[in-house]
């Protein structure tokens, strides 16, 4: 949801589907390199990560590598806190993300049950 809003605020036409299918064009400068780097960072192949890091630095800047690493790392934390504590998503966020969740298949994630058991009407 924040991605869609940040795109609107900066006049970018963002294709959210690329978050699930990263071969699609996402509509943000350096988007392909960012998606490749994020996936490689939490994946098992070091050579793919090293290549993705260089491509991101080349396409955007060395500072972009640090920024992308910081954010990716932060969300590896948040995903573990969320799934480890079994927290639900907030009603306000659920309402705002209804179309996105349906289009991207997010409702099928098994961790969605931590939300739907409290808000079955949002399924």
């Amino acid at each position: 949801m924040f991605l869609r809003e940040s795109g609107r605020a900066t006049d970018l036409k963002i294709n959210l589907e690329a978050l699930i299918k990263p071969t699609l064009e996402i509509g943000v400068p350096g988007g392909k390199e960012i998606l490749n780097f994020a996936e490689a960072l939490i994946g098992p192949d070091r050579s793919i990560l090293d290549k993705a890091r260089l491509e991101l630095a080349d396409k955007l800047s060395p500072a972009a590598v640090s920024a992308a690493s910081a954010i990716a790392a932060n969300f590896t934390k948040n995903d573990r806190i969320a799934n480890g504590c079994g927290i639900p998503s907030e009603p306000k966020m659920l309402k705002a993300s209804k179309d996105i969740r349906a289009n991207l298949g997010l409702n099928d994630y098994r961790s969605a049950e931590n939300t739907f058991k409290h808000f079955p009407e949002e399924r």
Partner: protein
Amino acid sequence: MVLYADSNYPVHKDLDSIHAKQLDQLGRPGAWGTADQRLAIAQEVRQAAYKTGLQERPKEAELKGGIKLPDAASKVVQKLTISPKDFLEDSYTDAKKDGLNDEEYVEIVGIVSRLTCMDVFARGIGVPLRPLPKASEGQPSRNRPAVAKKEMAWVPTIPNLPEGGDAAKALYGEGYKTYIVRGLSLVPDEVRMHIELENVQYLPMKHIFIPDYQHHEGFTRAQCEIVAGRISALNECFF
């Protein structure tokens, strides 16, 4: 001391100092774990990530490990480290059945999450894992917030104001806080450290609803959200 002095990529000094502080703090007694227990959790995180190819090789001493964790703790650490998308409610109920209490469980979730965060950052900028500290003496504080109760998360949490009272005010301030902030609140220090990382690595929480707010040099908010969205998709995190 600069923690990431060997990085070829620029690291903001606030991020550097917070990682240095939080790594050091793993070697001190927490709310429910001794320093030895907390370091054993950290070592198990690194061993599990290394063995599955998700992280670089830890130092030899960290590979050998320290004290042996109880099986219940070890299972939580390994599953949450390696595969957060497979961490479902039975992982929590099994941990309780096998002897962990909620307070211990929440501290473990906090340590696994924060250390994974710091280690993934190091991997991202291409530097080796930072060494874990030595264990300090001392006993856990055993500080359980009396107001924490079962809400919608699996684990008890400190409610928002007004129900959460002074404990909520001290931890959350005046405003309403979502579950991603409150999830670890059974161990208040874990919330403080989680938010500290959030503020330097993602963006200061007070700016979260400004859609074009840019926190990172050379990286727009939209670019940040691509990273966040892709990581959460890969981890199948719904929240």
